[in-house]
């Protein structure tokens, strides 16, 4: 799959995200993009510092005016870098917050980002495993049964246009009201979100072999199970990995949104929410970066498994 307009109109999320990830992160293609990426990153950090000065300055001036002092521009800039609740924390403040959350706390502490991250990660992984295995199983059913294909696929495709994530808080609250709390409700949301990309991608992948290959299998008198095992599953692997990368990112988003309903105290989503209640901007940004790092690590991990697997199968490009 590539980023292409030629894709059929359906399958929106799966397509581009998959296309995006299948090309790798860009730096796979040797070092030629390292320098440009670093340059752009440096520009982003610089813009961030400027924005931090600009957005935090008015508070500094207000404080000074209230105290009846005059401040020089240099003092204003220095003061914008060290506020406790800045409008926009400077990059080094976020980095410090992140470092403090990861290394500065005991892992079992309620302030530890490792602890919150683990809560989020475990629900994400449970949901991802559940959703993607369901997606794979259903895809196998769909390519073998015309009735299932015609019944389910239109709904699977249509469901991609529905903002499923909006149901997340309801699922959490309802399940809590019947006594199901903790990891399971969040995992269900994550499973639901990772289910569809895998289903749609695997249906494509299982149908990927060309008719000649199916004919060959038939000329060897292979049954449906053998075709599945020796032809369909192996050739669907590139599609599987592409959709797994989309699915795990979606599962993480689902888990984080599932941690938002009031009352949640655990997980990166709850960290975001409590930060926003109490105006702790550094806490919000730290949780956000922790989530981003987690997402990147998970997608990278699947990409690494993909590279090893495909190379061993001789499918690597």
């Amino acid at each position, binding site marked *: 799959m590539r980023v292409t307009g030629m894709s059929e109109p359906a399958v929106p999320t799966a397509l581009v995200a998959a296309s995006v990830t299948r090309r790798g992160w*860009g730096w796979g293609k040797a070092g030629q993009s390292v320098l440009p990426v670093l340059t752009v990153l440096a520009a982003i950090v610089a813009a961030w510092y400027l924005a931090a000065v600009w957005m935090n300055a008015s508070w500094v001036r207000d404080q000074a005016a209230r105290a009846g002092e005059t401040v020089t521009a240099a003092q204003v800039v220095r003061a914008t870098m060290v506020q406790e609740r800045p409008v926009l924390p400077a990059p080094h403040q976020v980095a410090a917050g992140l470092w403090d959350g990861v290394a500065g706390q005991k892992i079992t502490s309620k302030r530890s980002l490792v602890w919150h991250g683990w809560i989020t990660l475990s629900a994400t992984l449970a949901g991802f495993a559940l959703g993607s295995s369901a997606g794979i199983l259903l895809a196998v059913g769909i390519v073998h049964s015309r009735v299932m294909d*015609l019944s389910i696929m239109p709904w699977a495709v249509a469901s991609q246009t529905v903002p499923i994530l909006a149901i997340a808080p309801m699922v959490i609250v*309802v399940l809590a009201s019947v006594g199901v709390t903790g990891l399971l409700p969040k995992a269900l949301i994550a499973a639901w979100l990772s289910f569809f990309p895998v289903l749609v991608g695997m249906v494509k992948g299982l149908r990927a072999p060309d008719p000649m290959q199916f004919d060959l299998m038939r000329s060897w008198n292979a049954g449906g199970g053998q075709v599945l095992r020796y032809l369909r599953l192996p050739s669907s692997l590139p599609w599987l990995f592409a959709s797994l990368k989309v699915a795990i990112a979606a599962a993480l*988003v689902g888990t984080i949104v599932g941690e938002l309903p009031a009352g949640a105290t655990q997980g990166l989503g709850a960290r975001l929410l409590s930060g*926003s209640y109490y105006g702790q901007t550094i806490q919000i940004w730290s949780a956000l970066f922790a989530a981003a790092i987690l997402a990147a690590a998970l997608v990278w991990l699947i990409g690494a498994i993909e590279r090893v697997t495909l190379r061993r199968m001789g499918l690597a490009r």
Partner: protein
Amino acid sequence: MTAAAPRLGVLALAALVLVAALWDARLGLLAALWAVGWLANGLLARRGGRAAQAAIPMVFGVTLLALWEIGVRVYAVPSVILPAPSAIGARFAASLPMILSDLWQTLVKGALTGWLIGTALAVATAIAIDRVPFLQRGLLPIGNFVAALPIVGIAPILVMWFGFDWQSKAAVVVVMVFFPILVNMVAGLAATDAMQRDQMATWSAGYWESLAKLRLPAAMPFLFNGLKITTTLALIGAIVAEFFGSPTRGMGFRISTAVGQMDLALVWAEILMAALAGSALYGAVSAVESRVTFWHPSQRT
């Protein structure tokens, strides 16, 4: 498939219904309902034809709805856990004015505004970095990276910056749709081949002329691909941002307060509206796409 396979399937279904009925009469009823729907689809699928192809998903959907309705009734599921479809429909009809005002706040003011601004920004950025390969090589990996991040998490920050009203929702949507569209648009601008660009050059077309007459039209299928993906993202962004604070209307606000009051019929009614709006938006983009990119192989039938 041999002729025996469908008959075996029927037998298996009948056995399943029987076992379910022995287990619990109500479960048997549901299983029978499911079996009827499934068999009807099996017959339709074997008949084939265009009408059958359209009817099968309908039958499946109606079967699911009937299972839901009857299941909720025979098991007397309390409405604070799962309301019946009929109750949701009644609530939808009864609160339609309120739901429509929520839709206006969330979809039109928040999501659509942000979607249009984000698209404009992304297209402009794509055109701007198009002339600088260095920037492209730097921005694209970052764009791809950001596309996989849980961007919706910036919602609390943007709500803090832009206030509770629709501006903050639009801002969240701008950030969410920017990178997917940027990545698609950059790919689209690179979609012309050297022969076509040479042709433009032989007609002595300048950069802007060649952009307007060759490369932008050629990029349209890619742009629409990005637009279709981001319709859902825009709605999600606007709804989730409302969980972090909003005026007293909006779909996200209504969902979170109705959940708090255990008024689940209203929650489902809002979700129904969101689903309808999301599908309508997607359909609208597809319709415009087929007008604009009528020349593309995927649009020719």
